[in-house]
């Protein structure tokens, strides 16, 4: 489903975030990308999600080489993913409901079905009773769950999560990971970048470890 081959990413200024990275994710798989901070986990996720472009190598999603895609088709590519961002990227000037509905509005989803879909997504993350609240009034864990609700509202086949448990205490983190596990069990491909190796121990999921921008042996 996701094939990354010989990908490298060098930022303007010469910093090389990824060097010759190859990896593969099968449909329905749940994969963790681990490594110290600065190892290139976020960069790898961004390249897969079509948010950044590699300086070398190729990324193939569902048989489509996205590295050679034109700019105009990138937005449509991104709609295939549910992206959970390290810093949430919630919009604080609107309600929880409006935040979760944004992907549907962007993709031109039929109007009448939006409320149902949004409420279903909010229900899955346990935020249904907070739909009118402003994101500022949510706790860190709730904000993360809202971010997840926004990622799944489009029912994407692939979820990409960048440090979804970053600032959460252990109990909350376990809960979030269990949530991803549940999505994975209904067939969603899940890729999670995390530095917290303790968290994934005993999950039995495959792990890709990055070290200074390269795959660690």
């Amino acid at each position, binding site marked *: 489903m996701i094939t990354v081959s010989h990908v490298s990413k060098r930022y*303007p200024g010469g910093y090389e975030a990824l060097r010759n990275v190859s990896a593969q994710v099968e449909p329905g798989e749940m994969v963790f990308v681990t490594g110290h901070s600065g190892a290139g986990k976020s960069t790898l996720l961004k390249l897969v999600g*079509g*948010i*950044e*472009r590699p300086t070398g190598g190729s990324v193939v999603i569902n048989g489509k080489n996205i590295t050679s895609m034109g*700019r*105009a088709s*990138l*937005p*449509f*590519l*991104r*709609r295939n993913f549910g*992206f959970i*961002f390290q810093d949430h*990227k*919630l*919009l*604080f*000037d609107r309600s929880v409901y409006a935040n979760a509905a*944004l*992907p549907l*509005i*962007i*993709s*031109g*989803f*039929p*109007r009448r079905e939006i409320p149902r879909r949004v409420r279903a997504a909010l229900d899955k993350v346990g935020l249904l009773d907070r739909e009118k609240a402003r994101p500022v009034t949510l706790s860190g864990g709730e904000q993360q769950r809202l971010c997840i609700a*926004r990622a799944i509202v489009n029912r994407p086949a692939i979820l990409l999560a960048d440090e979804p448990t970053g600032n959460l205490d252990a109990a909350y983190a376990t809960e979030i990971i269990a949530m991803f596990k549940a999505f994975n069990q209904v067939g969603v491909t899940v890729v999670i970048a995390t530095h917290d190796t303790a968290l994934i121990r005993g999950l039995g999921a495959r792990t890709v470890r990055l070290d200074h921008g390269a795959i660690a042996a």
Partner: protein
Amino acid sequence: MSWIFAHIDAFRDSMRRLLQQPFATVLNVAVFGIALALPCGFYIGLENVARFSRQLTSEPQLSLFLTVNADAGDVKAIEERLTRHAAVAEFRFVDRSTALEDLKRASGMSDVLSELQSNPLPHAFVVAGRSADPDLLEGLRDEASQWPSVEHVQLDSEWARKLDAALRIGRLLVTLLGVLLAFALVAVTFNTIRLQILTRRDEIEVSKLIGATNHFIRRPFLYLGGLQGLLGGVAAWLIVAIAVRMLNRELASFGGLFGLSPSLGHMTLQQIGVLLALAALLGWLGAWMSVSRHLWRMEPR
């Protein structure tokens, strides 16, 4: 169907943003209104002068004098040429004896004129051109002077021509003013929209990350620019209309002293339409430039 909703959303969104900052909106609309009212007002003024001068000069006329010895046959031939000529709207024949009688009556010199052995006046035609275009009239004059038994053709368009030149300079100045101010309005919108983009940076970034096309992101800003321009156009129209109304009141009391009743014409519906369309277009253009420039910066590399 969803694209219609997308446009309705964008329109609502831009409307809400205009109402959210009423003070800034009023100022921007005022800038637009004043900047557009200036060239519009001058233009309307020029149009009125042109109309007024057309009223004062009766139709642009040529006087065609035949040779003194021209006979009825020659008159007939000239008549035919004038009837067929494309530049001639209408003409009137002035018989030489009638002309002499008129002169006697009008000049009060009947005694002197009666002393004359023969009638010194020639037959004449008074010809009205199809338009006031000086080139057309001069062409007709030059052509008619070549006709047989035509002694002299007199064109009374000299001062019309001067006025025309003055009006042309006026129109050029108005055009220049209009172009400069149009540029300024695009620049003003560019900056307004730039501020909007900066305050909505997060929203734009998040929308792009979750798959918004550039069209989607651009749309509310384009509507905002266009709407602001349109409101500015309405303001300009109101300014011009009020100014014309006020001037007319003054002109009425001023003209009354001379037994005249001059009045300025208002903008026509068509002119108002052009003004509003142009205003909206300028706002839209400024917004488009601004959004294009700033969206490009947010592209992934």
